[in-house]
């Protein structure tokens, strides 16, 4: 019977084409929207994790309260011992030290006096250790515009925008003027090894990136750091795992009565991300739900129209002695077949477009020059196993359900009236 039904579907295009198009379109939109939204939020999580929040982050309790002011006088101390404990307690995580600092980026003239200057937003990461993943994690190699990442102590990368504006070239000296951890004046001269453009105005504005050992020396922060970030080695951000790590760490190391004791925060605790991600997840679910409901209504309507169009056909089949239940069964089987074809086509199209956008992405950097949020300039979709069923099953069920409801009218036909109806 299946073979017979497939032949019918293929030969009678008016019976199958519209439902297949409707299902394909609905499934395609559901799959694509799901993959696209998931991709955007996944990129946002990764970006925040890589640049600022880590999967988990450790700061002193008082540093955390004033984090926006970069209060390095409240930074973590004895970090080498703490790092050793973290590596022993959580071997499936990678732990990195980071220092954030502010100040004035000053460009000297030939007499060593100020030629140009602007506010600096400094970040110190481990650039020089052979096994460090920090340059890759912060996408520094790909974001370099001129020159290269520092290869030795005393070198720095600065914002390409700053370098262009003030005519700073590779090999020039620049001085950072600010405050050390103890409040003393910090003057430190670096040689510019490269210029960088992350494409995110919040990161690019006055950016200077130096090796963490140089920053520790300049800021009087030997064996100290602003924060320690932790990353799961084998997976991306996992909220449940992060919760467990946070709970065990804080119960072992954090003391509510000691403002300088370390305190761990998971990614979702920081930068208002919990609220943002919760809203994003709700929005995604609502959008997918709306697509599924509207697709089901359209397909039900399509089934009804199909039923009406084939009213005479069913009458003839009944007149020839075919049982109502058999006709109903063929309607359902046919709907399942059309649903399958539409869902497969829609899923393939949706996954295909998601894959394309996963590999290439859409570049919105031109529109984000004045955006101060930590958002990626290139948006990508993400292909996940969920995409293969998120639209497929609703497409199949909606078509079958629509035809089952529409086809039920077959049982209301009265054999006695068939010939009268067929005369028309």
């Amino acid at each position, binding site marked *: 019977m299946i073979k017979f039904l497939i032949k019918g579907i293929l030969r009678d295009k008016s019976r199958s084409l519209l439902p297949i198009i409707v299902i394909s379109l609905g499934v395609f939109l559901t799959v694509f929207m799901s993959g696209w939204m998931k991709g955007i939020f996944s990129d946002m999580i990764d970006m925040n994790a890589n640049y600022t929040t880590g999967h988990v982050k450790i700061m002193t309790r008082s540093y955390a309260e004033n984090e926006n002011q970069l209060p390095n*006088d*409240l930074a973590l101390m004895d970090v080498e011992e703490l790092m050793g404990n973290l590596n022993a307690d959580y071997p499936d995580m990678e732990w990195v030290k980071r220092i954030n600092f502010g100040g*004035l980026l000053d460009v000297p003239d030939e007499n060593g*006096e100020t030629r140009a200057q602007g506010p600096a937003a400094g970040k110190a990461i481990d650039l020089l250790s052979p096994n460090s993943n920090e340059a890759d994690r912060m996408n520094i190699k790909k974001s370099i515009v001129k020159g290269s990442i520092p290869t030795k102590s005393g070198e720095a990368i600065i914002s390409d925008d700053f370098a262009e504006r003030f005519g700073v070239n590779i090999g020039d000296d620049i001085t950072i003027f600010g405050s050390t951890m103890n409040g*003393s*004046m910090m*003057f*430190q*001269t670096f040689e510019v090894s490269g210029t960088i453009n992350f494409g995110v105005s919040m990161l690019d504005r006055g950016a200077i990136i130096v090796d963490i050992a140089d920053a520790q020396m300049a800021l009087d922060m030997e064996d100290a750091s602003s924060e320690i970030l932790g990353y799961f080695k084998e997976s991306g951000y996992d909220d449940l795992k992060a919760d467990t790590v946070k709970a065990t760490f804080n119960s072992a190391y954090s003391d509510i009565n000691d403002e300088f004791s370390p305190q761990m925060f998971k990614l979702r605790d920081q930068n208002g991300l919990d609220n943002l991600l919760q809203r994003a997840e709700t929005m995604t679910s609502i959008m997918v739900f709306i697509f599924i409901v509207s697709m089901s209504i359209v397909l039900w309507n399509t089934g009804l129209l199909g039923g009406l169009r084939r009213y005479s056909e069913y009458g003839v089949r009944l007149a020839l002695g075919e049982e109502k239940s058999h006709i109903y069964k063929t309607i359902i089987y046919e709907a399942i077949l059309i649903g399958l074809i539409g869902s497969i086509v829609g899923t393939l199209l949706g996954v295909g477009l998601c894959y394309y956008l996963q590999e290439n992405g859409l570049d919105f950097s031109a529109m984000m020059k004045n955006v101060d949020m930590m958002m990626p300039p290139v948006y990508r979709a993400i292909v996940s196993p969920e995409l293969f069923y998120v639209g497929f099953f609703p497409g199949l069920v909606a078509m079958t359900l629509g035809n089952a409801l529409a086809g039920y009218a077959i049982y209301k036909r009265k054999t006695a009236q068939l010939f009268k109806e067929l005369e028309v």
Partner: protein
Amino acid sequence: MKRLAIIIIAAFAFSFSTENAEDIIKKVDQNMSAENRVVESSMTIHGKRNSRTMTSISYSVGDKQSFTEYLTPAREKGTKMLKLENKLWIYSPSTDRTIQISGHMLRQSVMGSDFSYEDMMDDRELLDMYNAKLIGKEKLDDRPVFVIELTAKVDNIAYNSRKTWIDTERYVPLKEELYAKSGQLLKRVSLSDVKQVEGRWFPMKMIYKDMLKAGKGTEMHFTSIKFNQEIPEYIFTKAALKQ
């Protein structure tokens, strides 16, 4: 008739109090300001984790020129600051660099203290910057004081208004509160250890507290003050920074 008399008396009292306030502030300016002076001081900054003390020597002429050299500790030794008119340069011996500080950076803290560069730069006489109004008399640490409200009459000023408690006998401020235009209290200053130096009263100890910052504030002790000294002109040049 009775109401008119009250209004006239009130108006007279108001004009009298304004005049008095200006006279008081003039006397304060005579004590606190000088044609030139050489000051040796120590500054103790109470941070959240520790306290640091640094010593310095400052030379100033009027309110336009000043030069400060930090003497201790070793980390700060040789750091120099030069102010000419409204410009400020800082020299760091470790990098042999001279950096000009301007714009919003002038509001930053000096060496992690509760002083900003603006606070250190502004040596103008109070009457050049503010209108004064006497708002009361009270006792502060057993000393009778005038309470005077100062309101800015110029634009280029760090604090839009001040409330100051002036010793009624020695004409030196014993306490000051510095306010932003919004009315927010920004700094609180306590002055004590008032001594007579070369015929004028001068508070030798000052505790400066930035109200927007945690901590116990910054203590400034003047260990030596000499007024009307011969200060060589070359000190107030950028070349002197590198010497």
